[in-house]
């Protein structure tokens, strides 16, 4: 009954029948009906909750309510979409962006969905932090929780007590940032300047972290260095020391994260190293500088912004990483896992989780801001490293040897780790019984043929198909929203564009755990009742991975000559037609890249997913973590290996397909790399 007024707003636009677009009446009516409809929908949605009125003021006006309201469904989605587009059409008729309805509607759409699925949850988490367990707002409670020992304690410096989670995270992230940058630089130098024959192999290695679920490396490290790890027992036997759990805690997490994130630093730094104009180095040499001097006084300083960028990336990744600390953390508490335990464990303290999320968010946001300030817009355009025809200087000997040995050593270790992952799935019980067996694969992936047909009897099939379905659903949506946003950012000019851009890229800086928690808090009650459904998983993936699509789109569209768009406009086509017939066909490589990487990232996501899975919709990564917690390493590793292969197939197929593009520009490589250059936290 309370939905009746909506009909009024829906029917109102008929009043504009027969009027011209330029008539102010037309635009005013549309704006009024759109805005009014949305406002009413939202107010009404929020005003009535699960058990009657949400806000006391309504109770006093309308009397008590003994009915409940259900969440918005597909019908409400349709209605609100109608209102939104009525509104945007009205705004366009008023002359915004030269009356281009398509562009105004696109902006409206993106703003609406980003506001609903990025800002709203984050806002909820912020307010939730200010509430105690009874729902009463209290600053005092917030402050107590915020300044608690568990977060900020510095006990570990003096006594033998653990430090607060915030310091731990910060310390770890700084170490990892510095480590990955140095390693990445070493790799980049070897790959571009050493004249070594096997350079291409290094580039191939960069594919690995994309297709590896984040905690798998942690698992492999346990297999190698854990209590009954291969190397630990080997070394222990060798020098007669009993193996310890040394790897659990800071050392293990650090190794795992460095292994996982160095390739991303490598990709960024390759662009940076190649971007140092060889002419400058040649000029230095003609000015009598030797290799070492050239390197330290010309090359390195020119790389400084890139190094800063790589550091911040590693920092953010480490901060947000959830899988590795979960598996290897031991007593070393970091913010991301603490958030998890606050919700999932016995505490079930939403407020606590929210506070932790705020701390984590402030760290990553600051790093994000610093990164943008330092790099300006260059972060988002492809650095294809073309430029002048000079030949880069060879590395000075003092640099070459250390760099080579580090690179080779690290590569060897990476290969060993992946070998372990492969091997571990075939071993009976790791550390105890090393007989080879297919047992784990069978348990997970058996298929039996009964008289009714094929039956997926393996334990893992359920989560596997769910994951694939959801990833396949989310990927095209991600690509669409991302590319549409990229189009608006690259090709259109409108007031508030800076804010718009900031908003859409914000989700990059929000760690997965924070998103997971905020989605639980925001979407658990009407009007958005989405927890436990597949929809929330899809939405989560779309907005977590949107920056991937945006970035691929921006990189690709920046390479397209703007006059192509303009030619189309002067030939009488509007922006929608131009987008369809001119821009998108030329963006095919970028579209495919966005699709594939969105798919892959959806498959390997863990930190947000772990909060959002349910009995009905379990995801592969969550299932694997569950196995790990039960010490069922065999199945966990077997499943991980299968996942890696599935994604490897996806990525390789994509590379083969895209490699055949007739346009034949070097750009494809650059586009593909630029998509993953900024690698986001899992």
């Amino acid at each position, binding site marked *: 009954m309370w939905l009746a007024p909506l009909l009024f707003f829906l029917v109102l636009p008929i009043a504009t029948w027969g009027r011209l677009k330029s008539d102010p009446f037309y635009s005013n009516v549309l704006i009024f009906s759109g805005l009014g409809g949305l406002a009413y929908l939202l107010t009404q949605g929020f005003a009535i909750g699960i058990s009657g009125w949400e806000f006391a003021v309504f109770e006093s006006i309308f009397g008590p309510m003994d009915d409940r309201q259900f969440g918005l469904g597909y019908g409400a989605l349709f209605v609100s979409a109608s209102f939104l587009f009525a509104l945007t059409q009205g705004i366009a008729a008023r002359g915004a962006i030269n009356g281009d309805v398509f562009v105004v509607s696109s902006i409206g759409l993106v703003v609406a969905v980003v506001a609903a699925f990025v800002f709203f949850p984050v806002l909820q988490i912020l307010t939730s932090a200010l509430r105690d367990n009874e729902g009463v707002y209290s600053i005092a409670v917030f402050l107590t929780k915020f300044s608690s020992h568990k977060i900020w304690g510095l006990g570990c410096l003096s006594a033998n007590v653990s430090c607060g989670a915030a310091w731990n995270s910060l310390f770890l992230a700084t170490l990892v940032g510095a480590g990955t940058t140095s390693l990445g630089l070493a790799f980049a130098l070897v790959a571009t300047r050493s004249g070594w024959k096997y350079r291409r192999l290094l580039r191939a290695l960069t594919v690995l972290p994309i297709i590896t679920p984040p905690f798998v490396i942690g698992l492999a490290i346990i297999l190698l260095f854990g209590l009954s790890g291969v190397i630990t027992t080997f070394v222990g036997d060798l020098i007669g020391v009993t193996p310890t759990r040394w790897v659990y805690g800071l050392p293990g997490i650090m190794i795992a994260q460095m292994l996982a994130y160095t390739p991303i630093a490598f990709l960024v730094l390759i662009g940076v190293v190649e971007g140092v104009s060889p002419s400058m180095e040649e000029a230095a040499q003609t000015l009598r500088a030797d290799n070492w001097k050239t390197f330290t006084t010309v090359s390195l300083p020119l790389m400084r912004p890139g190094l800063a960028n790589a550091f911040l990336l590693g920092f953010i990744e480490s901060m947000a990483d959830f899988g590795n600390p979960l598996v290897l953390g031991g007593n070393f508490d970091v913010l991301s896992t603490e958030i998890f335990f606050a919700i999932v464990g016995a505490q079930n303290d939403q407020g606590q989780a929210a506070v932790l999320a705020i701390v984590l968010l402030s760290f990553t946001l600051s790093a994000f801001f610093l990164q943008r300030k330092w790099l300006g817009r260059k972060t988002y355009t492809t650095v294809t490293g073309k430029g002048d025809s000079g030949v880069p200087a060879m590395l000075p000997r003092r640099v070459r040897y250390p760099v080579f040995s580090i690179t080779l050593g690290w590569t060897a270790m990476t290969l060993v780790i992946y070998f372990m992952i492969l091997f571990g799935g075939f071993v009976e019980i790791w550390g105890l019984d090393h007989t080879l067996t297919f047992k784990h694969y069978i348990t997970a992936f058996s298929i039996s043929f009964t008289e009714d047909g094929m039956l997926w009897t393996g334990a893992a099939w359920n989560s596997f198909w769910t994951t694939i379905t959801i990833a396949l659903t989310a990927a095209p949506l991600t690509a669409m929203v991302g590319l549409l946003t990229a189009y608006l950012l690259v090709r259109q000019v409108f007031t508030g564009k800076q804010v718009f851009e900031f908003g859409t890229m914000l989700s990059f800086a929000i760690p997965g755990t924070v998103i997971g928690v905020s989605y639980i808090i925001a979407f658990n009650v009407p009007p958005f009742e989405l927890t436990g459904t597949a929809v929330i998983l899809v939405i989560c993936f779309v907005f977590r991975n949107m920056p991937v699509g945006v970035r691929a789109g921006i990189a690709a569209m920046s390479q397209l000559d703007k006059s192509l768009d303009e030619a189309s406009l002067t030939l009488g*086509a509007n922006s929608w037609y131009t987008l369809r017939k001119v821009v998108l066909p030329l963006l095919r490589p970028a579209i495919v890249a966005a699709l594939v990487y969105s798919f892959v990232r959806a498959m390997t996501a863990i930190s947000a997913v772990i909060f959002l899975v349910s009995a009905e919709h379990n995801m592969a990564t969550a299932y694997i973590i569950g196995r790990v917690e039960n010490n069922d390493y065999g199945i966990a590793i077997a499943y991980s290996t299968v996942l890696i292969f599935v994604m490897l197939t996806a990525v390789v197929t994509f590379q083969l397909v895209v490699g055949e593009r007739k346009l034949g520009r070097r750009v494809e490589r650059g586009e593909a790399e630029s998509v993953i250059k900024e690698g986001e936290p899992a």
Partner: protein
Amino acid sequence: MSIKSNAATVSFDKVSKIYGGSVVAVDQVSFKIEAGRLVTLLGPSGCGKTTTLRMIAGLDMASKGRVFIGDEDVTKLPATDRDVSMVFQSYALFPHMTVGENIAYGLKVSGMDKSESDDRSEDGLKLVGLTGYGTRLPSELSGGQQQRVAVARALVLEPQVLLFDEPLSNLDAKLRRQVREEIRDIQTNLELTVVYVTHDQEEALAVSDRIIVMKNAEIAQEGTPRELYEEPADLFVADFIGDANVVTAEISSIDGDWANVRVGNAETRLPSRGMKPGKTQVAIRPESLQISDSNESGTIEAEVVKATYLGSHMEYTLDSAVGELFVVEPDISNAISIGSTISVRLRNHGIALVE
């Protein structure tokens, strides 16, 4: 030739374009272009000519003032809705469509059915001399051919105004002359209204009915090529179109519309242009100075500092009483050597009083 002309006038009424509140790209520019004429916007980089062109197209919107095409006020209309076609500097051919599809693009957008748009497309190809190229991709054509496709694509829409944005800048020198003549031929044959932007003054002189010279976001002078070359309004125009020797002179007396002018020891009669007796400046074209080694009265004495042989003419740099002079002399057989003293006489054309 079934491609008709739809030519219309173009008027600007105190149009300005201001970026970000402070950067004035075009400052209160007004002009009127007659239908069926080729008018060139000429000027150095940054003078506002390209911005003006884009405002005619509707790709940029005027901040102030009004734009008319024909009798219609199109100031608020975006490019999509104006009947104006443009040939871009980079041609902007759609790389994923064939030549035929490129040319037919605008026709398809306006809803024309396939057979008719194919016919028109063929007409367009014939007009620019590319019959049979319809199935090729732009990447398979030379620069000159690509440009012709761009022209055909713009023409088949029978626009009211056709715009060219520095169309010859990507072509090599030999091709430029040929292509500019082809453009001029198409324009005169179809009686199209064409607005043409270039920074090459020789090109402007060759193709235009009228030239609008722009400088610093304003119009410096407007007129026919002959008017601009022989009667430049000020120093800037005199120096921008062709070369000019700018020397001090003195107006000894005014006789109606004419003035008696002394340059050094030489005297001549020039249109007075409303100026009064006294010290002033004249712009003298290099070919308007005549060199002889005889020492006559009423000439300027000078010494040859540089002599360059350019095949079709000699170029001399002279050091004279009125300053340095640059002279172009068609007589190559009697080259004068460096260091000789010669006299310079003023011819009776190519000299103008400038402020």
